């Protein structure tokens, strides 16, 4: 044994952990609790900047002002479309888990989300009542619509591409690179490209429609198309990661199964449906949940392409938090919304964690 005095294992470990623990505590844990604390105050950004005592403890008032209203009641079938979707989700989760095509944790996750979808939209202002914040729930709704189109859009196209590109040849690897390339661009480059692509006067899409005698659509300022335009730009941008994850998942499926199936005449689409999909369920759920977490936090695309418009149809949660905090200077209310965002994201992260731990 060496004779020089040295650090014990514990001391060395803490020394190595120190840089991480300091930054982590200072820039993540502390801000998180501070955010909760701000959300319990009436906190004006400018007033508090000039006078630190200009804040007032208001308890849960901010949450009430954001999420609740005057004379709120609950009734069945207040929002039939969402609630029917929820009921279908419940039925689907029971059916799929009975069939054994869905693991129990996936089924529980789908079931819980669906039950919430049936229950929550039932709240609405009664006669003479109103929401305290008229924009909050529509904003959450827009965010869900965005997630509802972007996630299946990305997942389905990435899955099909991955299945087609899953061969180790030079041509396929070049094609994979081409599809992945847009993923490394920044959100501001993506919105720059698509703003001009969608422009009714200068846009490539408009130029092509005009050549074929069509009338160009004013994508970004038309209430019907603005969200669609943002979803298209997003799918184009963020297909890459999903495709890479699917390719990794496909590598794990043994070639023997396909060879055995080919003997039974299952090739192409049939092999994809009966072999690839069932063997890929875990990867699919990981990708879907990652995408939900990612796209629920959408900010740059609507902020830069449509500024939340026209008529608030593309206003999303993070942009509303940003505006409430930094344009209206109402940090208390903005923080209450941020805590709401965290709770939703957190529950999806837990589902992701559980699925990640599950063995195939």
């Amino acid at each position, binding site marked *: 044994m060496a004779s020089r005095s040295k650090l014990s294992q514990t001391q060395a470990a803490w020394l190595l952990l120190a840089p991480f623990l300091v930054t982590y505590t200072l820039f993540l844990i502390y801000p998180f609790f*501070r955010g909760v604390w701000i959300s319990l105050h009436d906190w004006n950004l400018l007033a508090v900047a000039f006078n630190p005592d200009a804040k007032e403890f208001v308890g849960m008032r901010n949450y009430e002002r954001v999420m609740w209203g005057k004379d709120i009641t609950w009734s069945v079938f207040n929002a039939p479309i969402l609630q029917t979707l929820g009921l279908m989700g419940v039925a689907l989760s029971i059916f799929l888990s009975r069939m054994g095509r869905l693991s129990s944790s996936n089924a529980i996750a789908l079931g819980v989300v669906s039950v919430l979808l049936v229950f929550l939209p039932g709240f609405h202002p009664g006669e003479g009542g109103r929401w305290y914040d008229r924009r909050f729930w529509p904003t959450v709704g827009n965010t869900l619509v965005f997630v509802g189109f972007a996630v299946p859009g990305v997942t389905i196209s990435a899955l099909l591409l991955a299945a087609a590109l899953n061969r180790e040849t030079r041509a396929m690897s070049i094609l994979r690179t081409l599809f992945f390339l847009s993923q490394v661009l920044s959100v501001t480059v993506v919105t720059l490209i698509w703003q001009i692509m969608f422009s009714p006067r200068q846009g490539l899409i408009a130029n092509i429609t005009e050549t074929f005698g069509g009338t160009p659509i004013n994508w970004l300022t038309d209430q019907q198309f603005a969200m669609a335009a943002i979803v298209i730009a997003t799918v184009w941008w963020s297909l890459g990661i999903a495709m890479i994850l699917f390719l990794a998942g496909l590598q794990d499926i043994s070639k023997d199964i396909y060879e055995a199936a080919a003997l039974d005449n299952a090739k192409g689409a049939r092999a994809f449906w009966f072999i690839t999909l069932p063997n890929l369920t875990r990867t699919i759920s990981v990708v879907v949940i990652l995408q939900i977490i990612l796209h629920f936090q959408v900010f740059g695309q609507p902020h830069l392409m449509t500024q939340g418009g026209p008529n608030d149809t593309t206003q999303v949660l993070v942009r509303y938090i*940003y505006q409430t905090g930094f344009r209206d200077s109402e940090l208390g209310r903005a923080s209450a919304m*941020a805590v709401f965002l965290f709770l939703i994201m957190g529950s999806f992260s837990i589902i992701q964690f559980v699925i990640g731990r599950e063995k195939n």
Partner: protein
Amino acid sequence: MNRSYYWLVLGLSIPAFLWLVPTLWMVSLSFQPNEVLARTTSSTFFGLIPLPFTWDNYAALFSFGQTPKWFLNSFIVAIGMTLGVLLVSTTAGYALARMEFPFKRAIMVICLIGLMVPEQAVFIPLYTMFAEFGWHNSYHALILPRMAVPIGVFLMMQFFKAIPKDIEEAARLDGVTWLKIFWYVMLPLARPAMMTLAILTFLYAWNDYLWPLVSAQQREYFTITLGLASIQSNFAQSEGLGRVMASGVIASLPVVILFLIFQRYVVQAMTAGGSKG
């Protein structure tokens, strides 16, 4: 290879080309004169071929305006953040993977919980905190908050766990200290994993938008990502479409080059971060 394979490649080339069209169009527009673009953006084959051709937009970018400064800022911030994340993640990752000490499990659990906190949920308190320190509009304000990312620690921890224990144990028996083992034995072995983490962090830092948007209010502290956002709203009037597109190309060039060179590492990082994170 059989015939159906060639049909597949051909069939996939069409969507791949369409996928590339928006980017190609940006590049092509950046090489066309602003006067022409003010009239039409579809001069030659819907504007996808840069004719009439000019270098002027790029020359203008680097002769006046703040683009060179923003470009430099992006490099400083991205490199600073990359070095910071490497330092924090390798040290903590090694300690958590290979050493025994009290409260180890508790720290792991706290890290896992940290993975669930999205930056969008903490940017307001971070803003007030940095405002109290008087730190906004500086490089360290842009770098520091992003160093607290537990995902890097998990990536490094997984890597260190996979290294066989005998090398380390032999060194221990010779009386080498823990810190020396870390520095001289483990770090050189960890180079591929550090590479992966570094590239991922660089890409992330270069493209970060929300935090720079609230923290850097003075234009001389803008990153190129933020600067591009600030000029794109008025592209048609003041700057000229060609010049804005040239900024977009310049802003993308470093990350695209980095990606094309180190593709293997990027793909590895995304697979590891996606399925395990």
